[in-house]
C-alpha cells in the first residue's frame, strides 16, 4: 500500500523535475508546455490532498489550477507566439544547458539548506522544503533570462510555488482560496494584456534595454 506521504513526495519531485527542465530549456514553446505540465502536476497534488482530507476548498483549487494554469494561460501564451512558434528562443549565445541545469540543482540545494536552518521546525510536513525550492527556481529563471515570455513563466513558477506552499501548510486558512484566485487573475492579466502591449509596441518579446548593458 502506498502511503499518502509517498504520493505527495512523488508528485513533489515531479514538480521539481519540471522546474529543472524549465531552467535548461531555451526554446519558448516547449517552455510553455513545461509550465503547463508543472501546473497539471500541482492540480494533481491539490486533487489528492482534497481527496484525502475531504476538503471542498482544495478540490475547487485543484480544478482552478488545471483550468487556469495548465490550460488557459498556456493557451494564451501560445497564441502570443503563434506566428513564430517553432523558432522563438532565448537569443543569447551565453545560454548553456550545462550551466543552467547545474545552477538549478545548486540553487535547489542552497534553498534546502536555508529552509533547514530557518523554517524546517515550523513546517515539518513531508517535502515541506519543495515549495521553497520551487520559489527560488522561479526567481532564478527571472534573474537569468532576458526574454519577457520566459520571465513570465518564471513568475508563473513562483505563483505555483506559493499555491503549493499554501496547499501543504495553510489548509483551512480562510483567505487561501481568495489569494490563489487573485494570483490566477494576476497571471491572466499579465499574459493577456501586458505581453500584448509589449508585442504591439516593440514587436519582440526580448528585453532590449538589458542587451545594451551586456557590452
Amino acid at each position, binding site marked *: 500500500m502506498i502511503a499518502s506521504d*509517498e504520493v505527495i*513526495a512523488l508528485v513533489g519531485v515531479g514538480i521539481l*523535475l519540471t522546474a*529543472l527542465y524549465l531552467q535548461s530549456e531555451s526554446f519558448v514553446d516547449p517552455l510553455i508546455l513545461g509550465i503547463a505540465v508543472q501546473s497539471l502536476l500541482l492540480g494533481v497534488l491539490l486533487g489528492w490532498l482534497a481527496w484525502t482530507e475531504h476538503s471542498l476548498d482544495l478540490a475547487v483549487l485543484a480544478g482552478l489550477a488545471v483550468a487556469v494554469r495548465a490550460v488557459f494561460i498556456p493557451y494564451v501564451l501560445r497564441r502570443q507566439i503563434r506566428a513564430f512558434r517553432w523558432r522563438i528562443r532565448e537569443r543569447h549565445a551565453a545560454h548553456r*544547458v550545462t550551466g543552467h*541545469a*547545474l545552477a538549478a*540543482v545548486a540553487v535547489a540545494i542552497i534553498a*534546502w539548506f536555508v529552509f533547514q536552518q530557518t523554517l524546517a521546525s515550523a513546517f515539518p510536513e513531508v517535502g515541506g522544503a519543495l515549495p521553497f525550492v520551487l520559489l527560488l527556481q522561479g526567481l532564478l529563471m527571472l534573474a537569468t533570462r532576458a526574454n519577457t515570455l520566459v520571465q513570465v513563466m518564471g513568475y508563473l513558477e513562483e505563483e505555483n510555488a506559493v499555491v503549493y506552499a499554501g496547499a501543504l501548510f495553510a489548509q483551512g486558512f480562510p483567505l487561501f482560496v481568495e489569494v490563489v484566485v487573485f494570483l490566477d487573475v494576476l497571471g491572466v492579466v499579465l499574459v493577456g494584456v501586458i505581453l500584448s502591449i509589449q508585442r504591439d509596441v516593440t514587436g519582440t518579446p526580448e528585453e532590449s534595454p538589458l542587451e545594451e548593458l551586456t557590452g
Partner: protein
Amino acid sequence: MDPTEQIVNVVQAATVLLLSPLLAGILARAKAWTESRTGPSIFQPYFDLAKYLRKETLVPSVSGVVFRVAPFVAFGSYLLISVVVPIITPYPIPFASTVDFLGGGLLFGLAGTVTLLAAIDSGSNYSALGASRTVSFAAFAEPTLIVVFFAVAVITGTNNPYVTNNLLASSLSAYLSPTHLLVTAAFFLLLLAETGKLPVESAGLMEFGMLEDGRIFEHSGRLLGLFRWNGWMKQFLLCSVFLNVFLIPWGMFSAPTLGGALGNIAILLAKLLLVVVVLVVVEATVAKVRLFKIRDFLALSFSLALLSVFAFAVLGVP
C-alpha cells in the same frame, strides 16, 4: 566452499563471456529492422570474433608494451566484474564479497583507463584524438556514476548491489521512491552514453564524432578482437546491472541451485530483450547531438543523479 556455488560462479562468468556478443548481435539486427533493412545475423558478432582471432596482428613500431597488454587487462577487469554483480543470482556468489558497488565502478574505470593508455601508446594521432575526446566527456560521466553509488547507498544503507536488489524486489514503496526513480533515469542516460548509443554516439561508423572506436583505431587482429569483446561485455554488464539492480529487480529464482541459476539466465535474456526494444526505440527516434552538446546530455544525467540524493534529503523517504 560449496561446490554448487563454485559452479554457479563459473556459469555466471561464462554467461557474460558467451552471451555478450549475442546481445550485440540482437541489437544490431533489431536496429536494422527499424531502418527497413534485413540486417546481419544475430550471430554475426561471433563470426566477427572468430575472424579477428584468426587474423594477423599488426603492432605499430612506435608503440610500447601498454599497447599490447591493455586489451588483456581490460578483458580481465570485465571478467572480474562479471562475477561480482548480480547477473544470474539474486544472492551473492563467492567472488561477490571481493568488491562493493564502488569497487565495481573502479574496475570499469581501470578497463577504461588502460584502453586510453593503449590509444596514447599507439603513437597515432587519430587514436590520441579519440582518447582525448573520451576523457573530456568521461570527466562529466564519472561524477554521475559516483553520485549514482551515493544514491544506491542512501536507499539501502549499504553499497552492496545484492542488498539493493533484494530491498527493491521486496518493497514497492522503496521501488517507487523518488530517489530510486531518479537514480534509475540517471543510470539509463549514463548507460546510453557508456555503451555508445544515440544521442551520444552512433557507434560503428567511421565518422568524426566517434568516441569508442576512435580509441582502438590502431589495434588489429587478436588485440582488436579482444577490445570488441570488451565492448560487448561492458554493454552486457551495464544492461544487466541496470535491469537487475535498478529497473526490474523481480523475477529471479532465489534458490541457490544450479537449476535456479540456469533458469535465471533465461529470465535475464527475456529482460535483456526488453532493454533491446527500449534502446532501439531510442536509437530510432532521437538524432545524434552535436559533439559539444554531449556535455549537456551528461550534465542532465548528473543533475538527475544529484536530485535523487537531494530528494532523499528533502523528503526523508528512501
